């Protein structure tokens, strides 16, 4: 049986106003992202990868189309609701780890559970410990992140992405600032997370990452040029 998508984009397009006229950077596209799947979105600079990522991350609203989480269309949701949906459903891994340099490894990881206030739950703390342990960072719990290498920082960022037990992990060029060895560790970790049942979306322009993909979506000039298709459907063109 085909599982329900974690997030669905239906006829989603995005325009930007450059001060004089509207410029379309993303043309109407459909995309469904499923659990247990690592989807790589690739394309040259200016192809619309980051715009697509920020729409899926509920950071930008599409100019048209629907963004469905479950049955709920959240394309027009309020800013606060979108923030809360991100907190509950999504984890994020950024290009340069984007850790807070003033905080320790544990504090950075747990910050994801505390951004809207309230105490950090025991479950979130346990997940942070497990994630850091799995990523080989258990001994760095109280270490300030400024003392870590780039690869170690990215592993802390992955632990942070897992603290709220998200269904979907969105990664923006997570290996572009890393050496080959660190990149391999990060990619294997992301792959493992997808095989364990999470949906992972990885935006990159680096073709060395492609072998890790269950699905490869390539954008050119704001349109999906190729889509290898989801393993959960027999018809890859269904999303294209």
């Amino acid at each position, binding site marked *: 049986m085909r599982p329900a998508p974690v997030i669905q984009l239906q006829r989603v397009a995005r325009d930007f106003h450059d001060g004089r006229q509207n410029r379309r950077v993303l043309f109407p596209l459909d995309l469904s992202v499923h659990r247990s799947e690592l989807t790589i979105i690739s394309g040259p600079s200016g192809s619309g990868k*980051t715009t697509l*990522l*920020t729409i899926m*991350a509920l*950071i*930008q609203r599409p100019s048209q189309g629907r963004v469905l989480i479950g049955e709920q269309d959240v394309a027009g949701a309020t*800013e*606060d609701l979108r*923030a*809360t949906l*991100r*907190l*509950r459903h999504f984890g*994020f891994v*950024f*290009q340069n780890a*984007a850790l*807070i*340099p*003033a*905080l320790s490894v544990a*504090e950075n990881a*747990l*910050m*994801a559970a*505390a*951004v*809207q*206030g309230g*105490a*950090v739950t025991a479950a979130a703390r346990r997940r942070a410990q497990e994630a850091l342990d799995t990523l080989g960072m258990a001994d760095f719990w109280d270490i300030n992140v400024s003392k870590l290498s780039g690869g170690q920082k990215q592993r802390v960022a992955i632990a*942070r992405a897992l603290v*709220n037990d998200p269904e979907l992990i969105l990664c*923006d060029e997570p290996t572009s600032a890393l050496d080959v060895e660190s990149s391999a560790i990060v990619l294997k970790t992301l792959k493992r997370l997808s095989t364990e049942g999470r949906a992972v979306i990885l935006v990159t322009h680096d073709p060395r990452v492609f072998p890790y993909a269950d699905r490869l979506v390539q954008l050119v000039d704001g349109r999906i040029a190729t889509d290898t298709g989801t393993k959960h459907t027999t018809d890859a063109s269904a999303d294209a």
Partner: protein
Amino acid sequence: MRRAAALKMLFHDRATALGSVAGVIAIVFLVGQQLAIFFGLTGFMSSIADTSGADAWVLARNTENINAAGSIPLSWRDRVAGVDGVAWVEPVVITAGQLRRRDGNTIGVQVVGCNPPRLAGGPNRFAQGSIADLLDPEAVTVDKLELPELGYPGVGDALEINGKRVRVAAVTTGLRGFGGTLLYCSIAKAREIAGSGGDRCTALLIGLSPGRDAVGMVALLRGILPRAEVFATADLSRSTKLYYLKNSGIGTSFGFTTLIAALVGLVIIALTMYTNVISKSQDYAMLRVLGARRRDVLYIVFLQSLYIAAIGILLGFLLLAGFLSGTRESALPVSLPWLVGPALAAATLLLCLLGSLLAMRRAVKIEPASAFR
């Protein structure tokens, strides 16, 4: 967790955080210092009234300022003494004089002559001797803080005021006048120095029977003495201060200096807090992506403002306490009523939050999309 993170994020950039703290310290210390000197000076303006121990004063008509009172007939004393509720009435003579120091130089002084044996209106704080020493017809007091001005006379030393011989009999502490160095003596000596007759005085001091209301008595005496000015002591003190504030540039000068001190602190806080937010804009954008709402980011910057305010106010007051302690025995007039402390702390907190508004505004405008790239 957010509180600790806010504090750590704030002090991660120590230079800007300490700059903000310095802004708060500047407000507390500079404004506190100005206020202390202001209240010290205004205290001197009315010290004759404030230390008198009287409940009410009868003065010449149109007197607003105790240091510039005309003379009144001593015969009014009998009319006041007969009023029900008046326990005692004593005349005082307040006059200006030129004191010749032992080195031959002269200095302007203000002389208050009190009527023995009660010596009402006399000094009440002594470093050496007591008020009873003023029973000596030649006795005068000098204040400890004015000794350098007076050429360091000791108890027993003879001096001249307006060419009349006086002898230092006691040393007061913290009793200083606004119109010149304040000396107390007997009323007879004051009249001799002033060259005035025995049928006039500068004021009548009134002590009320226990339980009598000064305000009611003042109204009653105004009816009995329509050609006099009658004040409750607190009102005379207030009127004297207001007179100087209205007729001199003191209020404007201190107000302006205080305003500048507050503005300097405000600008320092605003710039450093803003810089702090700018330097951490990627952190805030990342928090927004993770799920922080605008108000969550605002809360972090607000907390940081509170931390800055708390630390700065604490350090500022410590510095101010050091200043007040260090100048207590100096010629610098300083006095800080206790209410000024909490008021200054509250005003500084408000200024700190005001200074942080720009930073808060910047923080809530940070878009989560800026965390990507």
